[in-house]
């Protein structure tokens, strides 16, 4: 899986690069419009992380170029600007997703995985975690090939944590992913605890070989038993 990160801010770029390499992606970086353009024209990527506010040009033009070249690269726009206009323009130009800075790295990870998952053949669309198989499209969870009943939130939470397995995912990242953008207005995110508790109980009852551990003061982590 090859990912191109077009981001002018060196810290941000390095951070995303390092994170994605930890996830076993092949990562290339471009730190301005022109080098981004060169790479887009010359190579194919599975996913492009595109900051549209670049010092020497508008990232939306890169999108336009991709469209002109008829390339199928998935694009996730990251922007400091929470502008509806840009969002609409970006998605119109064929971007797959739009993330506003600051975002949780877990959220970016989940979005990249969904974007890539959409591209690959059906057979591999299952998210497999030990003896747990998750079919995200059909919203089915199988433990030892036995289906497990989860409500919507429990399912979304399992998928989100599963995509970020072995990582500490902060409570706010979980809350924003499952309860929507507005929940970031909540004063604390301890309310997700009861949902997590139910999910853990169901996993235990179904003898799943995965567990969700609380990381005190931070959030939760999905681990294999």
């Amino acid at each position, binding site marked *: 899986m090859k990912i191109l990160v077009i981001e002018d*801010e060196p*810290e*941000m770029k390095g*951070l*995303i690069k*390092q*994170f994605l390499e930890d996830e076993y992606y092949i990562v290339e970086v471009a730190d301005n419009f022109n080098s981004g353009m060169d790479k887009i024209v010359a190579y194919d990527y599975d996913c492009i992380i595109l900051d549209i*506010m670049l010092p020497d040009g508008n990232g939306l033009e890169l999108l336009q170029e991709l469209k002109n070249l008829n390339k199928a690269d998935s694009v996730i726009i990251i922007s*400091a*600007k*929470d502008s*509806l206009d840009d969002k609409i323009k970006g998605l119109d130009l064929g971007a797959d997703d739009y993330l*506003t*800075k*600051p*975002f*949780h*790295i*877990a959220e970016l990870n989940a979005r990249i995985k969904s974007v890539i998952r959409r591209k690959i053949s059906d057979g591999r669309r299952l998210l497999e975690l030990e003896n747990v198989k998750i079919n995200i499209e059909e919203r089915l969870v199988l433990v030892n090939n036995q289906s497990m009943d989860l409500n919507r*939130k429990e399912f979304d939470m399992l998928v989100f944590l599963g995509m970020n397995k*072995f*990582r*500490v995912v*902060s409570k*706010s*990242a979980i809350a924003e992913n499952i*309860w*929507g953008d*507005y*929940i*970031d*207005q*909540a*004063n*604390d995110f*301890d*309310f*997700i*605890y*009861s*949902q997590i508790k139910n999910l853990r109980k169901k996993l235990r009852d179904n003898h799943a070989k995965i567990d969700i551990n609380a*990381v*005190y*003061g*931070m*959030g939760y982590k999905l681990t294999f038993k």
Partner: protein
Amino acid sequence: MKLINHTLLFLSAILFVTVSLWAVLFYSQLLKQVKTTIDEGLANNKIVIIDKVKDDSLIVQQDVFVENNYIIKSVSEDYALRVRDSYKDTMVFSNLKNLRYQTRLLTTAFVASDGKYYEMKVISHELNKGKLIKKIAASLLWLYLFMFVSTILVNNFMLKKTWKPFYQLLKYLNDFRLDRGAFRKLPETRIKEFSLLNESVQNLVKTNVDIFNSQKQFIENASHELQTPLAIGINKLELLAGDEDLSPEQIQKIGNIIEAFQRLSGLNKSLLLLSKIENKQFISAEQLKFDDIFGRIIHDFSDYAEYLKIKMAYYKEDIWEYKMNKDLAEMLVMNLVKNAIVHNRQNGELFIKLSSSSFTIENTSNEPMMSADKLFKRFNKKSGSKSSTGLGLAIVKAIADVSDLAVTYSYNGRHVFSVSRKSL
């Protein structure tokens, strides 16, 4: 007091004084002239009488003005020689009219052909000062009234015309809002002072609008620029928290730092949102149902409310269709619901009532009644509530203002926020 009335008052006072002074002057001049004329008549009369009587051998002494308008009495030579012609005002009693009247009196002396000395007093016809004053006063009053009326007319016409640019400028300044940016040009005027004033005002306005815009731009840019370092900070800490070597205490500290960063980012976002709302950057309006929005928001917040043991109840009388920007409508409802949850107490209640053209959100709370003026101000928050930004209700107010909605606060043991269509 309007400028026109002020000038009018001033002018009429001056006019009154001038006319009065002039009346006195005019009266004295006129009186002088009248007396001179009368006196000349008396002098003529005197010559005629003397001519008539001096050759008479027998001068009839008369001591009252009866049929003739003179009296003659014999005097000593010494006395007669000392008499000089003198004119003066006097009062005479007329038997005929049976009243006293004012007249001019000429006192003179002459020597008759018989060598005897006589003193003679001649009176003129009636001199009625009172009548004169009355006439003058009456005509001057008319003059004054006439001038007063013409002053009003001239003032109204002239001043209104002259001050038109001023009133236009006033209206312009009244209509001017710094945050509305674009300003129209003032109409041209031929009067130099007004044209200078207009120019100065327009320059002032332009400078201020420019400064305001650049400040606004600066704040927006600063907010955007802040997001990147915040993102870096949060993401780096999130990665760091995954480090296996960290102790739970260290992870907790990292968690605290992330929370602080997120609060900062939330604050930043809210400020940006406020400035966007106030800049009317949410233009597109659509017909929406508040019922749908409540459904979504209540769903989003139900777990949070449940966790805080707050009983949330939604009474739907109607769905309230309204035309406004959808994002703003969601933000409005979300902020009010969130506010009602955050400021609630444990085991508290939250009631939402939606009718055909309004909704109310009531919540129980440990907090006493708030002042409605302060409530919607930015950063008006209780000290000690560390996690609220103090911007939620300011955002609510800003959204209501741009969407022709009225939001009111009242207290009936519960805190009640009502939103309805703004009455025009």
